[in-house]
């Protein structure tokens, strides 16, 4: 089939960008959206133009690298699907498709459709972990985790950190991403010890990065390729409220003798 693409082209963060129009010819329905872009790029190279820069890696929907807003919807609007798993059989002959990068202040543009999502890494660095060193951890079955808890933690942990939630949100809020990580670890017994400081520190970092506030429109959940539930935002809000009420823990005045 033949399609028309309107693709955002921008040389770098400081140059102005604009849409360019390209014809995508002889596209096969079995191609993924990114394979369609590969075809367009091969033709651009053959004609002596610079190919469209876009991020991708695993191309099987798990690494979270690909990050395209396709006709206004992050990842293109097929439920539970990243752009790399979106197939051209979803489109019709003659369609015009716009392709844009994630747009959010906290995700500065690098080039064309490529953005910088380091802010997500910094949020995890603020508290998205269990403070346990490698070494003699106790037997994995020493702490029993009820199946229901393990399952809900896994539902949250399935987040791939792609940032579609931010791109979809009118406030560019990162609540769903942060809530997924907070919930994954706060639900599990292994993560309980640092539950309060985790949520406090991660939320503080999220705010510092310039993500917007959550007004619970649910657009994040709607585009999330892993179906991360809004309920985790509620869970995070509860945990956050508890942490605020408890306040900062008293600092011990002296260390142990030794």
């Amino acid at each position, binding site marked *: 089939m033949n399609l028309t693409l309107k693709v955002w082209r921008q*040389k*770098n963060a400081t140059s102005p960008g604009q849409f360019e129009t390209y014809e995508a010819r002889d596209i*096969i329905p*079995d*191609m993924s959206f990114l*394979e369609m872009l*590969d*075809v367009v790029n*091969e033709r651009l*190279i053959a004609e*002596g133009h*610079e*190919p469209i820069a876009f*991020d991708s*890696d*695993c*191309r*099987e929907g*798990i*690494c*979270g*690298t690909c990050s395209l807003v396709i006709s206004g919807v992050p990842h293109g609007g097929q439920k539970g*699907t990243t752009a790399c798993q*979106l*197939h051209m059989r979803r489109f019709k002959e003659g369609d015009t498709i716009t392709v844009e990068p994630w747009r959010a202040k906290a995700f500065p543009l*690098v*080039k064309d459709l*490529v953005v*910088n*999502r380091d802010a997500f*890494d910094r949020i*995890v*660095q*603020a508290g998205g*972990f*269990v403070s*346990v*060193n*490698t*070494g003699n*951890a106790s*037997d*994995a*079955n020493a702490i*029993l*985790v*009820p*199946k229901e808890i*393990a*399952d809900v*933690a*896994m539902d949250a*942990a*399935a987040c*791939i*950190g792609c940032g579609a939630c931010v791109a979809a949100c009118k406030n560019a809020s990162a609540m769903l991403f942060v809530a997924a990580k907070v919930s*994954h*670890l706060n639900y*599990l017994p*292994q993560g309980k010890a640092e539950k309060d400081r985790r949520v406090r520190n991660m939320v503080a970092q999220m705010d510092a990065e310039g993500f917007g506030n959550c007004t619970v429109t649910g657009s994040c959940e709607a585009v999330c390729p892993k179906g991360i539930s809004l309920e985790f935002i509620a869970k995070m809000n509860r945990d956050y409220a508890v942490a605020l009420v408890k306040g900062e823990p008293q600092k011990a005045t002296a260390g142990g003798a030794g």
Partner: protein
Amino acid sequence: MSLDARIPGGPLAQKWDKYKFEMKLVNPANKRKFEVIVVGTGLAGASAAASLAELGYKVKAFCFQDSPRRAHSIAAQGGINAAKNYQNDGDSVQRLFYDTIKGGDFRAREANVYRLAEVSANIIDQCAAQGVPFAREYGGTLANRSFGGAQVSRTFYARGQTGQQLLLGAYQAMCRQIGLGNIQMFPRTEMLDVVIVDGQAKGIVVRNLVTGEISSHAGDAVVLATGGYANVFFLSTNAKGCNVTANYRAYKKGAFFANPCYTQIHPTCIPTSGDHQSKLTLMSESLRNDGRVWVPKQKGGQRAPADVPESERDYYLERKYPSYGNLAPRDISSRAAKGVCDEGRGVGPGGRGVYLDFTDAIKRLGEATIRERYGNLFDMYEKITGENAYQAPMRIYPAAHYAMGGAWVDYNLMSTIPGLFIVGEANFSDHGANRLGASALMQGLADGYFILPYTVGNYFASAKPVKVPTSHAEFKKAEEDVRNLTKRLLGINGKRSVVSFHKELGKLMWENCGMARSRQSLETNLKRIPQLREEFWKNVKVTGTGEELNQDLELAGRVADFLEFGELLCIDALHREESCGSHFRVEHQTEDGEAKRDDANFAYVAAWEFKGVDKQPELHKEPLTYEEMKLATRSYK
């Protein structure tokens, strides 16, 4: 140069304990004076970086992805093995060791494999402590499933996303150390050379993929955790970015490369659908727990699978390998699939496919149970093929998946260059000629969490490496070489795209050096690859400049290395006049088409030394001596 694997003396089961007692230690206050460079942030790299930083070393970590969380370990689906014996089904360290050596067709080093089996249980403990949400039973204990090449249930999993969850565990441990200031992280940064001073690895040269800036980083040790080279086949289950560049450039600087011909072709992948295809997608081997593999008994039939009566189906794995059935190891299952397709009994477009059928399992367990076990895989299958595998069987075909070969390392995981350590899939050490399912995650994390933190310290304390600043002439020279290479690639301005060369190379590798290899097919490649390489350097078109984000340039550098590395792979495959594991030479097979090893002449690790492009590399042999295991014909019948 003779290869010394530095295996500790004593009985096999005590070697690692003995090593840990006899190794030299670095005083806690001195650890912060040592800097370690870790390239790659998959399971091996991230776990190594985190663990070294926890010990007190200063770590600099590098990855080409935009975040360390995206390394390709994330795509591993099925699970991770560990000799926990939680199922009371007779598992033990000894049995995991035995299965791994046998699965590798007696081409792995005993001492390394035993150590791997020993630390496997600690990995599960560590990951559970980090909050990895492993699958659990209702009682709260960990669940297990079985995997190919084993008769016990020792595989731990987190739905169909085990690699993702284990990687996030290691990434989070790393993030904690980044936050504490013990790791400095460099994403979107590609290593393009390793710097050797007075025979020791002293640092690396990198390119910032956003600005194009070339710079040097010095360290007291360099760790490469840069994954495997299956993308030499162009179409593989690897991520688009996976490449051999870091490993290959270390090879060109003197690190020996071992057993490159051991490449795993995974039996359960979604078949190719056309020339546009950019990669192949794996369907986890765990599916073979409940799915039955079959093709019609008669060839040429284009009937829908439901129209083929039971009596006309050939469940060929169950027929040929009754004791392992659908859980026969990967190399054997892949060859069997190729065999029935070569007979003309394959299904789907082009006849390159076999059925993986869940009808019986759905009848026995109900669709809900199957959905819970494999739902994400069935969804993925439907997205790619547009078919519902709950209603009709999946079609699968083998695809290049994993590299057992890699940089030669000794028991310390150190290459032939002192101070250069190589971990995870990038080294050759543990899987012999064929890797068992759920063992890659185990090895990556064993190397990073539990082995490297000891052996790097031992290197520092015993070799006492001298610090070399990045102003040293060797750094400047390496930087200049990298700049010149970039300029050269951008200056050719020919007619063919980088991808077209990669595809052509991949096709040569798959056709002539894939699941079946012959002297003739390999010689064809050894003629064609140098020609293709020559054409590349005359006629490739690389767009853009070196001073910006330039994905075409990144790919060009990687393909240039594949064009040399592919030749090395074929040289190794040609020299190994036997069939073993994944390496199947048609000249060497039994009457019923199984691999025929030649232990008298080939029970060794082939380690290749670079002698120059277009020159024959020099072969060094590390004999494989088996103290514990008896060399035996591998049988899964």
